[in-house]
Structure formats: C-alpha cells, structure tokens
C-alpha cells in the first residue's frame, strides 16, 4: 500500500467517523429541541384560545360562529383545535380537526385518530377544555426538511475536504516522490550524492542516510577496483619478466641465454609466491570452512614456520619458547602462515647481519608470537597502511600481501596483531592467537 493511500485511509476514515458521530449527536439534539418547541407552541396556542374564549360573552359562547373566528387564528398556523364544555359537549372546532380530538385528559398526549397520529395538548380553564393538536406526520416532514437543508451542505463540505485532503497529501509527499524519481532515474553505477536542497527537515535525514550509503558503496567499489588493478599489476609484472626473458633466451646465445633463463625462473618463483598468497587471502576471507584441519601447539607452529624460510635466512632467527601445552585454535596451516609472514617481513626489512627474535609464550586464553628485529622500524604513516593489500615498503620484493593475510586470519579467528617500534630500536610485531579449550 502506498504511503499516500495509507495516509488517505487513516485521515479520511477518522475524519468521516468523527463527523458521522457529530452529526448523529446533532440530529438527536435538534430533534428533541424541535419537539419541545412545537409542544411549546401547542400549549401557547391552547392558552391563547382559552383566554379568548373566556373573554367572549356567555350567551354567544354557545353559538358556533364567534368561537370559530377565534379558532381561525390558530388554524392559520396549521394547528387543529377543539373547544369543549366541561361535560363533553363540543363548542367549537377547527375545520381540519378530527372528531374526538378533545376526548382526553389535560396535558400532552400522542394518539391515533382515524388512522392519523396526532400530538395534542389539552388545557382546562373556567369549565372549558381547549385541545390543540399537530399531525405527527407533518412534524416529521418539517424535521426532515430541516435535517435535509443542513445535511446537504454538510455532505458537500465533507466530500470537498476529502478531495482537498487527497491533493494535500500528494502535495505534502512531493519531496519524497521527487527523491524516488531522482533515484529511479540514476544509472545503476552512479554513486554521486543526492542533492539535499529544497527537502523538508523530516526527510533530510533520509537523504543523508541514502547519501552516506552511496558514499560507502562508492568506497567499496573504489577499493574493489583498486584491488583488481593492483592484482593485475602484481601478476602481470612477474609474468612480463618471465615472458621477456624467455624471448631473450630464444634470441641470445651462450652465457646471456643462461642468464635469461635463470631470470625467467626467478620471475616464475615470484609469480608463484604472489599467486599462493592471493589464494590464501581468498581462502581466509571467503566462505570456506577450516573446521576439519588439525590444530597445533605453539612450538610446532614456530618450527613449521621456520621450515618455510630459506636456510641462510633461517640462521638469523633465534627462537625463545615457553612451555605451554594448549593448542592454538587456528588451523595449523594458517597459524604457520601468519608466523612465517611476520618472520619474512622482519628478515626482509632488517639488515642481513642482524638477528631476528621469535618469542613464543602462552597464557590461559592466547598464544603470543612476538617477532623482534633490529631494523629501521616503521614510520607511523606506514603503520597505518601496512595492512593494505599490495602495499609494500619502498621497492621491496615481497608480494605486498603478507600483513594483509595475517590481518585477515587474525580477524577471522579472533586474534590480535600489534605493530610497534621498539624503544631500543628495531620493530616488534606481536601476534596473539586464541588457544583451544583443555579438552581439544
């Protein structure tokens, strides 16, 4: 149901209901007032006739001519009237009054005479009884006329206000409609913000929300595009090296041919490394399950991480291990990858002749792997971007994915990674991975 129909239904229905109740209430009130007024008139007429009859000389009172002229006064108003003696003899009667009108006691009464309903009032004075009466049917007709003449303008006003309401709601909702139109007219990939000018205060937050959503979408698209571009660059560069060197090897001879083939192989290794890192990243960030993989303890992880490093570099690493029997609650291959990536970075970015320390220590909740080097450390600016994919310090030869992978694994399995320059010089990367429960 559209907002407009909803508003129309809610406001229109309550509007109609309120007016209907009001009109019923008014009708009931008017009817009783009207009845009282007509009754009042009957009584006044009766008293007036009685007064006139009393003033007539006694002799003529029995004649029928004079009293008739008296009754003409009330007959002109459409009131039937009958004057009787106290003993029941009729003295006079208006020509339209039915027989037996006066055969009643004093006061108001409603009776059916000759199939017609009459409302009558009987007044007794000086031995004469004056009865005045209205036809109920005429009273009702009169009431109907009054009700009709007020109901028609009332209905017209009500229909009119419903129409006004319909257009008013439409006009009031116009800003929403214009936003809808603006959104509908956009190209699917448009991410420019909606304009918030000429929008009422209530809708401005909506426009702001839409705009902030668009902003985030634009950010995500931009990141995605950059990632694709970076990935293309990272894969094409070693591929170019391989292809070029192979073509050179085909043209060249002897030592130069050999050198080119070796260079091509270095390129292949780089390509392989980047591809493997990308696959790990995709696995960690993707919807894949690692549930069935083995868990390992801290020592095992450290040893396997070291195994993945070339021998001459491995000799620079000094491991300090604190005995701890709990296993790390991260699949073994991933835990090894995180530690190896941190070691890789430390070895790569610190001078060749300096040692790299790997401290492994466990607590009740986490296993901590600290990698400490004696290199130049990392500037605050670099620490901010170090986790970004394909970011690497200077023109280092890494894939630029090492820390991104560590970060992704830490985020997925609820660990922590802290990067900081050491006060004594060098750099420290502390990785804390959750440990499994005692039973595991």
């Amino acid at each position, binding site marked *: 149901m559209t907002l407009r129909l909803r508003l129309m239904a809610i406001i229109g229905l309550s509007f109609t209901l309120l007016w209907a109740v009001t009109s019923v209430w008014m009708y009931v009130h008017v009817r009783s007032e009207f009845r009282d007024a007509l009754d009042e008139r009957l009584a006044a007429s009766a008293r007036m006739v009685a007064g006139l009859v009393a003033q007539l000389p006694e002799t003529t009172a029995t004649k029928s001519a004079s009293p008739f002229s008296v009754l003409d006064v009330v007959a002109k108003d459409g009131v039937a009237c009958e004057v009787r003696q106290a003993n029941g003899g009729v003295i006079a009667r208006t020509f339209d009054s039915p027989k037996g009108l006066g055969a009643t006691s004093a006061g108001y009464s409603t009776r059916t005479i000759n199939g017609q309903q009459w409302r009558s009032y009987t007044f007794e004075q000086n031995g004469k009884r004056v009865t005045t009466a209205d036809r109920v049917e005429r009273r009702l007709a009169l009431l109907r006329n009054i009700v009709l003449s007020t109901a028609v303008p009332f209905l017209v006003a009500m229909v009119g206000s419903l129409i006004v309401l319909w257009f008013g709601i439409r006009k009031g909702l116009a800003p929403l409609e214009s936003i809808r139109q603006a959104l509908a007219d956009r190209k699917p990939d448009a991410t420019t913000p909606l304009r918030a000018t000429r929008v009422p205060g209530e809708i401005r937050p909506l426009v702001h929300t839409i705009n902030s959503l668009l902003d985030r979408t634009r950010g995500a698209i931009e990141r995605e595009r950059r990632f694709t571009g970076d990935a293309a660059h990272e894969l094409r560069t070693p591929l*170019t090296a391989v292809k*070029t060197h192979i073509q050179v090897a085909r043209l060249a001879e002897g030592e130069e041919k050999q*050198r080119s083939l070796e260079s091509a192989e270095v390129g292949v290794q780089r390509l392989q490394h980047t591809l493997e890192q990308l696959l790990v990243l995709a696995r960690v960030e993707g919807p894949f399950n690692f549930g069935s993989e083995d868990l390992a303890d801290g020592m095992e992880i450290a040893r396997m991480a070291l195994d993945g490093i070339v021998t001459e570099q491995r000799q620079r690493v000094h491991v300090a291990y604190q005995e701890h029997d709990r296993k790390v609650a991260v699949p073994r291959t991933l835990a090894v990858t995180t530690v190896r990536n941190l070691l890789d970075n430390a070895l790569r970015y610190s001078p060749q002749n300096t040692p790299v320390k790997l401290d492994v220590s466990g607590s009740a909740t986490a296993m901590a792997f600290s990698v400490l080097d004696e290199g130049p450390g990392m500037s605050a600016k670099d620490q901010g971007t170090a986790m970004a994919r394909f970011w690497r310090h200077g023109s280092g030869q890494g894939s630029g994915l090492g820390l991104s992978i560590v970060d992704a694994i830490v985020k997925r399995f609820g660990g922590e990674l802290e990067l900081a320059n050491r006060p004594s010089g060098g750099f420290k990367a502390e990785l804390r991975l959750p440990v499994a429960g005692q039973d595991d």
Partner: protein
Amino acid sequence: MHALLIEDDALVASGIVAGLRLHGITVDHVANAARAKAALDAHHFDIAVLDLGLPDEDGMALLSRLRRSGQSIPVLILTARDAVEDRVAGLQEGADDYLLKPFDLTELVARLQALLRRAAGRSTNLVQHGSLCFNPATQQVTLKGAAVELSRRELALLQALLNNPKRVLTPEQVKDSLYGFDESVESNALNVHIHHLRRKLGPGIVETIRGVGYRLGDPEP
C-alpha cells in the same frame, strides 16, 4: 637508436634491456622518476619507454612534468594497468603509444621503430636515401641493391644521421645515440666509426661541419 627505459622492477628491466640490445637498440635503464629526469636532462635519447608504477612518482605525473618542461621525446608507456581510462589518460598526458604488460619483444621493438619513424616525419618503414636503403626492422642496409654489412655501432650511427636529415648533430649527440651512458668511449672511437661508414657507403654519406659536428650528406644518385 638510443632508448631510455624507466622501469622500477629490476627483473623486468633486465629482460627488456637484453631484448632491445639484441635488436640493435642502445638502452639505458633507470629505476625511478628522479633519475629518469636527470638522465633526460643530461643526455640525448631518441625515445623513452615508461613504466607507470614508479616508486617515487607516478609515471603519468613524470610524463606530464616532462611535457610541461618542453621535452618532446617520443614516449611509449608500458604498464600492467589495462583499464581504458588509464590508457586514455596516458595518451592525453602526452604519451605517443601504449603497450600492455606482458608483451612481445618484437612488438615492442616494432612500435619503438614506428614511433621513431613518425618522429622523423616518415610514413614507411624503409629509409631511402638516394641509392641507399635502410630497413630499421631487420637492420639491413643495401647500396644500389647490394647488401652492405655494418657493425652495430655503424648501424646506430647511420640511423642517427638518417633520422635527423638536414640537421647538424654535435659529437655528443652522436655519441649519445651510439653508447649507453655507462659505457666508456674511446676519444677517437666516433672518428673510427665515421671512417668505416664512409669506406662502406661512400665518402659523401657523412658531412663534417668543422667545429660544430656532423650531418647526413646529400643523397647520391
């Protein structure tokens, strides 16, 4: 032809340098924008091959800086970024051609030669100079229809002269076309090459303008 390769990846650069040298092109390699600018300021190059992802400055920024400073050297952009916008932006910033990594060496060489040809105002690949005919693609020279064997340096010298007809080249400019800037050159080496060229192609091929430099001689019928 003397080319400047501006490429930050050492492995890619060594491949391109070796490949271009095998095609008779003298190549110098720099790994960042600052060195590229310095090299272009100090030496004469016929053409530049520019990688966009440089460590110190974006290749596109370097290109527009070069063009603003009046550097008109033909530039071929070599990059791994394949978005159409990137390519259009590169050409609009003043690049003359665009090649996507990975590429074929032969294509790179052919494009470089085509750019050079255009820069010299020719539309066919064969350079005709009187009865002398030079094919830059195959590096073959014929005189009155007969093939002439020239050494690598002699070919480079001939090409430098043919690419700048009617212009006087200073000895430094000629040397820049023949040698990479890290090669040591004997003081009379240039004279030796000119001597050989005159012997093989006729004395009128190189005209010596005393105290200024050298010029391509008038064509012989």
